[in-house]
């Protein structure tokens, strides 16, 4: 073989393909022109926008509610054949195997930041003193769940300036809690008094402050929290200011969750407004009942979520919170309020069937993956919000954020955690008296407990506040979150006390670092 000619070429090129400066066209901007004002920004419209930005976060089964309930002992989203599989997104909440790619956690984090920004935008546009106070409350209300779930809270002090090159700072743990506390304290003097039905009030801010103070020890050390008496006394003092207001346990527990709960809900301290006529309220509270109701009930539900048998067993049979007939519900559809277990009937007493013709009888037992012939009927269903038969989108039920019983139980807990007991209103002056005031009230109807310790408060919070989006927060504070439980057979790693920072956020804000263990 003979080589004709051999050529060897080696080249190394560094090419800087710069020809012009990259010039970006502006596509979205908040200007005085597009916010309703002529020449000046319409700050009222901005404030309404800030309020409404929470609808997607709280009136949807896949956002804050899922993050606080599905990882707890109160709720599970089983896969029923091909239904509700969603590639395991619900199951990994319950068995604590979520990752930094979890779609719902990613969206929740993003939307909370958007709400924060919406509130900051109000502050930057010459609000009145009250408008500024409301915006500060809303900003704190957007930052607190981020602290609670992720520990790291991205924060921009201003909505103006160059948002692309200035990265949001990140407030963590105790520092974030202190910031939220100072913001709420600054807001309270200029907030209106009274019930916060869709509007930030002094009591709404106080209730949120209670949450932050009560959990401050958790934010300092989630694994082994300690609770400072000074913080607990703050909780008690704030509770007492709220208890001096015109709230009561009313005449029916479920009135607080009825379509007209803004009228008959005597416990409501802060709600997100849902008003079908005014077109406000996203989907309202409908997800809360639709996600568990079967296709063949009225309303025809989505046949998804259930509560767990072990949780259901925490109730005594006499407990009215466990459920019963409710006028406007049972006479319309045969459904009861509270927990649905066993054979379901329509309003005429006719036994319902599932789509396969089996009796529509909800079972105590449920699995993460249902595959059998009974897959449509496993698991106890929950109706906390009373279905609105007059409107579907949005249902008129206002979304309850803070209410009286929560405040009372927080006060009782603060006393047991080292705070100094006080006696305000008809509720009693010890933890036991307060808890038993709730239990023995005609709207609950169970006997007083002999001793009330922290475990008793924990269980009472479950019975009282089930499916209201507090359980994960409670379980962590009471040290119960990692323990094995129904459908979560193993002790979770300590990293599960926090959710992982979404991958999407890590890529765009280097001030965030992934939480340990993820």
């Amino acid at each position: 073989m003979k080589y004709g000619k051999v050529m060897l070429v080696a080249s190394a090129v560094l090419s800087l393909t710069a020809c012009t400066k990259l010039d970006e066209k502006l596509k979205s901007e908040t200007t005085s022109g597009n916010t309703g004002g002529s020449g000046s920004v319409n700050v009222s419209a901005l404030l309404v926008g800030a309020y409404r930005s929470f609808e997607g976060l709280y009136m949807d089964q896949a956002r804050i509610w899922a993050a606080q309930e599905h990882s707890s002992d109160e709720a599970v989203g089983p896969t029923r054949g091909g239904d509700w599989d969603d590639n395991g997104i619900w199951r990994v909440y319950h068995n604590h195997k979520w990752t930094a790619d979890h779609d719902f956690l990613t969206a929740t984090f993003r939307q909370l930041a958007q709400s924060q920004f919406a509130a900051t935008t109000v502050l930057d546009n010459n609000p009145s003193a009250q408008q500024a106070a409301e915006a500060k409350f809303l900003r704190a209300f957007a930052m607190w769940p981020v602290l609670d779930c992720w520990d790291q809270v991205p924060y921009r002090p201003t909505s103006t300036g160059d948002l692309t090159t200035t990265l949001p700072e990140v407030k963590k743990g105790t520092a974030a809690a202190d910031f939220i506390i100072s913001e709420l304290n600054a807001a309270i003097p200029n907030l209106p008094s009274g019930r916060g039905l869709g509007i930030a009030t002094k009591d709404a801010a106080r209730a949120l402050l209670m949450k932050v103070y009560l959990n401050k020890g958790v934010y300092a050390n989630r694994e082994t929290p300690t609770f400072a008496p000074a913080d607990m006394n703050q909780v008690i003092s704030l509770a007492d200011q709220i208890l001096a207001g015109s709230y009561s346990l009313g005449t029916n527990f479920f009135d607080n969750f009825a379509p007209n709960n803004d009228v008959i809900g005597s416990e409501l301290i802060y709600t997100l407004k849902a008003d079908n006529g005014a077109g406000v309220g996203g989907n309202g509270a409908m997800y809360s009942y639709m996600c568990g109701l079967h296709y063949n009930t009225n309303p025809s539900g989505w046949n998804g979520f259930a509560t767990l048998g072990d949780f259901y067993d925490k109730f005594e049979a006499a407990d009215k919170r466990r459920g019963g007939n409710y006028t406007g519900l049972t006479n319309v559809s045969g459904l009861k309020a509270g927990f649905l277990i066993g054979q379901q009937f329509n309003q005429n007493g006719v036994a319902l069937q599932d789509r396969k013709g089996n009796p529509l009888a909800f079972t105590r037992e449920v699995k993460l993956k249902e595959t059998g012939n009974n897959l449509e009927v496993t698991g106890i269903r929950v109706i906390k919000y009373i279905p609105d038969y007059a409107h579907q989108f949005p249902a008129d039920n206002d979304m309850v954020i803070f209410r009286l019983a929560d405040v009372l139980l927080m006060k009782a807990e603060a006393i047991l955690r080292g705070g100094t007991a006080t006696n305000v209103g008809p509720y009693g002056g010890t933890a036991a008296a307060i808890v038993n005031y709730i239990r023995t009230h005609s709207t609950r109807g169970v006997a007083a407990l002999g001793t009330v310790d922290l475990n008793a408060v924990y269980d009472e919070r479950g019975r009282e506040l089930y499916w209201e989006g507090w359980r994960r927060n409670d379980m962590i504070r009471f040290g119960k979150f990692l323990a094995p439980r129904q459908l979560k057979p193993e002790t979770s790693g300590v990293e599960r006390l926090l959710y992982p920072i979404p991958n999407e956020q890590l890529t765009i804000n280097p001030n965030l670092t992934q939480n340990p263990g993820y």
Partner: protein
Amino acid sequence: MGNPDLKWETSATTNIGLDFGLLKRKVNVSVDYFSKLTEDVLFELSFPVPGGSSARIWKNLPATIKNSGIELAVNANLVSKTDFSWNLGFNATFLKNMLEGLNGTYNTGALHGQGTTGAYVQKLASGYPLNVYYLREYMGIDKTTGQSVYKEDGDVSYFGKDANPRTLLGLSSEMSYKKFGLVINMNGAMGHYLYNNTAQSVVPITNLGSRNVASSLVSASVREDLSNPITSSTRFLEKGNYMKMANMTLSYDLGRITKFVKGARVSLTGQNLFVITKFTGFDPEVNVDKNIGGIPSNGIEYIPYPTARRFQLNFNFSL
């Protein structure tokens, strides 16, 4: 809101080549090593939150993309006689692609169809090729329950196969015998995997009794239960290896036929005549756009238009 710090991507390219002829230059060979390092990669990203609603900005990522490989081309003039000539060309590219220095990861490859809410199958992640598959690992159908079995019960996804071909192949042949001519062009790619979203979502077993079902499911030895959820997993990952007869032209030169027509030629061309592949979708040369937030996907099949097979009969006259 613009990004005043925006700059162009930088690419550093290194090539080392070797060209030589063999057998009195009847065979020419060219070997090239290339390495391309792209820095300050431009991406359209979400805003660092909190910040604006859903505004998106162009940003230079602190990441590098490295493409390196070898290109080999061989051209052979096999026969060169008056009434018979044959040129044969062959080229192959062996390449590797890698992303480095990215903080966090991006998801892409959004699936469509029933049961795929929020499901995606690919990622951009440091230490992996672009569009690396990120999936739960399918281990078969349980004989007793008829349900899919996954590693770690399907709760964990793993970095896995590459969506980028590791080898690209091309073959061309030009032959003429007397007045006949035959031109053949083939192309192919190997070493990559395709995600069959069509098989997952359009013809799953749950359709039985109502819509079409993949024939492979009906004839399977282990019977899949109708309640088996539609779940994205390595089950729908298929090797994308293929070799395609891109086009073939057979021609005949009629020469001068009348006083006025000085030349005439008749030819028959076939395009996309056949594909050699084990991929079960329409065409292994598939890339349905399944981007997430502008991050492109790669190699996902979801009910694309089948590639047409064309035949053309041509007459050429020169006056």
